[in-house]
């Protein structure tokens, strides 16, 4: 986009018949905010390359890039599945399913994400494992020893913090994505479902072949934007001591007292990632629109 900007800049200066007003308007319409962001990123890159303290901070934090991206990606994939199921559940004719899905969404919406992540990782997961233990005891009492041994063998402490963090993020985003899926599905006219059903397709077949392909196409931009948000919110997992970019920055800053170096580098890293991802989403969106 920066290239485009400079190109149209040179073009305007080479075309004399344009009056001053329209040149001025063209200049005003250029994406200067983007130029500004690129300048910030380039400036930070030069600083990291040339100043030893920044360079050291970067080399530390670098180790967390992969953790941040992998955590976000895995959690996001899980959240997509959870969101699709919940979104469909919210429209289910079954009273129990519908209300359960709604309750999940409302609970997640009503609790701050940070608190929810603590809760799921430190309270929710141990609780689930306790329940599985009880289930194991029950299986043992009715003689299903293999299953019982497996369930009793599950240990709370054996679940690493990364896994807890991923589950917590997935559960949180699953609720957001459920609403995205629901909106997407509801944006498809009733006639589509009716036409499919009138041909003898079942509800599931109609969903899979007719409704979801159209719905997902409509919500792809929203899904992309939510992935960008996921990358940012994955910084919360640092509070579970997962060694993502944020956690390493905190460790680095804490041990060297170089807060400025640590958090400027960290911020610019996030910004670079999200800007690149957003551009990807935009390009993708434009391609989709062209195909319509």
């Amino acid at each position: 986009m920066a290239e485009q900007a400079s190109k149209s800049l040179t073009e305007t200066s080479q075309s004399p018949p344009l009056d001053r007003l329209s040149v001025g308007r063209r200049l005003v319409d250029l994406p200067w905010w983007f130029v500004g962001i690129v300048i910030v990123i380039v400036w930070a890159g030069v600083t990291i390359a040339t100043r030893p303290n920044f360079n050291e901070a970067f080399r530390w934090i670098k180790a967390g890039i992969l953790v941040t991206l992998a955590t976000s990606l895995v959690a996001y994939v899980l959240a997509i599945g959870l969101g699709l199921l919940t979104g469909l559940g919210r429209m289910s004719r079954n009273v129990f399913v519908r209300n359960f899905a709604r309750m999940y969404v409302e609970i997640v919406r009503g609790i701050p994400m940070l608190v929810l992540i603590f809760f799921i990782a430190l309270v929710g997961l141990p609780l689930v494992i306790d329940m599985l233990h009880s289930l194991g005891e029950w299986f043992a009492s009715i003689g299903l020893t293999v299953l019982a041994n497996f369930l009793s063998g599950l240990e709370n402490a054996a679940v690493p913090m990364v896994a807890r963090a991923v589950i917590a993020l997935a559960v949180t985003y699953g609720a957001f994505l459920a609403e995205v899926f629901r909106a997407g599905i509801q944006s498809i006219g009733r006639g589509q479902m009716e036409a499919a059903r009138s041909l003898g397709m079942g509800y599931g077949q109609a969903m899979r072949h007719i409704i979801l392909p159209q719905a997902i196409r409509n919500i792809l931009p929203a899904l992309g934007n939510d992935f960008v948000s996921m990358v940012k919110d994955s910084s919360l997992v640092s509070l579970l001591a997962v060694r993502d970019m944020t956690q390493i920055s905190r460790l680095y800053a804490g041990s060297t007292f170089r807060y400025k170096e640590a958090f400027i580098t960290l911020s610019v890293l996030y910004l670079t990632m999200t800007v690149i991802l957003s551009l990807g989403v935009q390009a993708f969106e434009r391609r989709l629109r062209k195909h319509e």
Partner: protein
Amino acid sequence: MNNEPIIVVKDLSKRFGKVEALNGVSLEVERGKVIVVIGPSGSGKSTLLRCINHLEAPSGGQVWIEGELLTSNQRQINAVRAEIGMVFQLFNLFPHLTVLENVCLAQRVVRKRPRDEAERVGMAQLKRVGIPEKAAAYPGQLSGGQQQRVAIARALAMDPKIMLFDEPTSALDPEMIKEVLDVMLALVKDGMTMLVVSHEMGFARAAADEMIFMDEGKIVERTTPDLLFTKPREERTKLFLSQILQH
């Protein structure tokens, strides 16, 4: 071939909240017959059609298709719907699929036909409605009349025993109505059992074995097109016909 009616509707009613869309409708349709249903908007014509293939679940009464009573059993309803083609006012083609895919999808998913067979049948039906050359196009690239013809081909590709038409031409520009009616007339000639909600009186005169006039969720009058147009028995029918035939 047995002579029992292919569609039997007994004392059918349908309520939407407080509104009685259908109020005790009974109807028998024999194989190969063409019945055109007319009536003012809100008279329950569409609801009657939609109850016959259970797109709306009736509030009361019974629908029998080929001697089989429709229940709320989803599997049974899906099987029955596969035998009943439906054409909608707004076409409802699948916009993300090509014309040929539109015509083939249900054959493959519901009838379990292999791809080559489905495509053969699909192309044959597209020829029947006169647009085989649009097989690779998307619905959005077609005119309304072409879209409706594809929708008819899509229903025919399932080899239905009954075709329901819910105001198939009322969303079309005038110059496109004829091409759709021509396809429907050809179907009549082939002996298809058809239930048509439409105010195309030319079509009714040419094709209908019988006509039904509905009002306020009831069948007011059922007779041949000749008699309906020349000697309607009921006052309400006369009034309605005078309103739509005035111009």
